[in-house]
């Protein structure tokens, strides 16, 4: 069976040359970078080089602005809490977009329990943050604004330069989560006006176990992890040297390969979306259309009258690895907060599937996915009472309304006693 990996947003394979670069740092160059002897000094040099490689990927001034963490979640926690605590006396108000990653949202909720307040700025139906509203949300007490570069669910590219300009004018530091964009789309922290930015090498053919936080020298940041004086006192704990070395090389390779990555995935994205629309009736794309407002790797789909976990399982049984934001996939039984924020009908959020492309995907993979997915949809619709009731005119389609029957949401509420959400 053909194997098609379409979950590059979750993780990517480590490239062989990256793996080779890491190898000596497990066995031979095993020293602790804080040690003052040859073993320590040798790996310290390796970390310095990796910092420069990371800085180059995002056009930072120097490697000294790069801090290594364990992953994207830790970077977000450090950015949000580290800036909030550092500026506690100046003010205790934060501004974030409504579609930030859970690591940002949960960090903010944690601070709210400690007396901070936070304004969540709404996004439009395509998932783009309204800069005007963001501007109105900033008060003299605001000490941090957090807006991601590319949305991890729906691939929307935020107007980040405008947001950065605004934050610059207001003198409030901006944290930009670049986890879904770095390695796949140019990231330029100077052009963004970002005081902080984060990304993770395992999203672009580097290893897991290392996260990167960029911090502009002017932004105040205190440590949230206490212990030794590693990472300029901003992050205690022994650095994951092999992962950092591999991540650095992955960043360097990404910078060189960026134009090819964009053209390769954009062509496959267009082919996949075009094919799915042709073969699957009542399907829609969530987020902006493929083009300048959407990252070339992501398709976030809603297929009507069927649920997402069933789609995911049948894709997997056919060798196709995908993700879903359906409530059935979530451990909390809630649909993705991003799909809620763009105002997506609950039934469509239930039928959600996320496909993210990478360099190993081919046109043949895409064509196989289109045909296989069309069969999967047919199989699940044959099992769905909603599809049958739509055929009989009892309920209507959200994607292409016929004017017959009641809404799916109304029907669901009628049979369950109360509305889902």
């Amino acid at each position, binding site marked *: 069976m053909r*194997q098609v990996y379409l979950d590059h947003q979750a993780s990517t394979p480590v490239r062989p040359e990256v793996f080779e670069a890491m190898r000596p740092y497990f066995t031979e160059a095993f020293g602790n970078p804080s040690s003052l002897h040859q073993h320590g000094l040798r790996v310290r040099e390796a970390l310095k080089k990796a910092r420069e490689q990371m800085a180059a990927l995002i056009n930072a001034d120097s490697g000294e602005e790069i801090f290594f963490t364990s992953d994207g979640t830790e970077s977000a926690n450090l950015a949000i809490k580290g800036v909030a605590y550092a500026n506690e006396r100046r003010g205790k108000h934060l501004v974030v977009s409504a579609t930030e990653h859970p690591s940002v949202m949960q960090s903010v909720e944690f601070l709210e329990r400690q007396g901070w307040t936070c304004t969540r700025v709404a996004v439009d139906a395509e998932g783009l943050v309204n800069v005007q509203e963001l501007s109105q949300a900033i008060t003299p007490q605001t000490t941090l604004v957090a807006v991601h570069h590319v949305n991890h669910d729906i691939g929307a590219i935020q107007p980040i330069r405008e947001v950065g300009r605004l934050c610059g004018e207001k003198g409030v530091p901006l944290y930009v989560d670049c986890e879904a964009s770095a390695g796949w789309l140019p990231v330029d922290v100077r052009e963004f006006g970002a005081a902080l930015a984060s990304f993770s090498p395992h999203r672009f053919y580097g290893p897991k176990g290392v996260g990167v936080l960029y911090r502009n020298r002017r932004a105040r940041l205190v440590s949230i992890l206490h212990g030794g004086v590693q990472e300029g006192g901003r992050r205690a704990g022994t650095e994951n040297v092999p992962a950092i070395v591999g991540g650095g090389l992955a960043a360097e390779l990404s910078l060189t390969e960026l134009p090819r990555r964009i053209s390769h995935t954009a062509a496959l994205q267009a082919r996949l979306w075009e094919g799915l629309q042709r073969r699957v009736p009542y399907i829609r794309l969530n987020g902006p259309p493929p083009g300048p407002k959407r990252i070339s790797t992501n398709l976030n789909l809603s297929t009507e*009258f*069927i*649920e*997402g*976990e*069933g789609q995911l*399982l*049948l894709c997997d*049984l056919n060798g196709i690895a995908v993700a879903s934001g*359906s*409530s*059935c*996939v979530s*451990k909390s*039984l809630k*649909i993705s907060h991003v799909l809620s924020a763009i105002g997506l009908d*609950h*039934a469509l959020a*239930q039928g959600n599937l996320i496909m993210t492309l990478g360099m190993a995907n081919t046109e043949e993979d895409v064509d196989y996915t289109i045909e296989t997915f069309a069969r999967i949809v047919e199989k699940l619709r*044959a*099992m*769905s*009472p*909603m599809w*049958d009731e739509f055929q009989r005119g009892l309920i209507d389609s959200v994607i292409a309304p016929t004017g017959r029957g009641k809404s799916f949401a109304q*029907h*669901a*509420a009628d*049979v*369950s*006693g*109360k*509305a*889902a959400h």
Partner: protein
Amino acid sequence: MSETYTLYNSTVMDHFMNPRNMGDLKDADGVGEVGAAACGDIMKISLKIKDGRIEDARFKTFGCGSAIASSSMATELIKGRTIDEAMNFSNQEVVDALGGLPPVKIHCSVLAEEALKAALEDYVKKHPEAVASSAVAEPVAA
């Protein structure tokens, strides 16, 4: 990949991939359709009842793998039961017959029980004489 890993156990996967009794019954004697407010899944069970006994059952489900497997298993289990027996059907039977469900998916089996009971209520409403003696069981809360 040489090995295959599955999200659910092999019985659940089998009922998801090869659902039993999937579809609708022409001239069904009782039909129940219920939804889970928690997650948004919807399940429909149709019954053919003869001489106080469930002769045939069919399901249709809008839901995840374990919801489809739960409704498939529920329709298998209730065939041949009397109305009284079916009224006392519990979601735990579905869970046990499936060899267990992840804790977060137990509500799928509850939905199957509710759909079955809704179908029985529909039948009783149309045939009050069929269950003169026994009270209609209240569906359990999700």
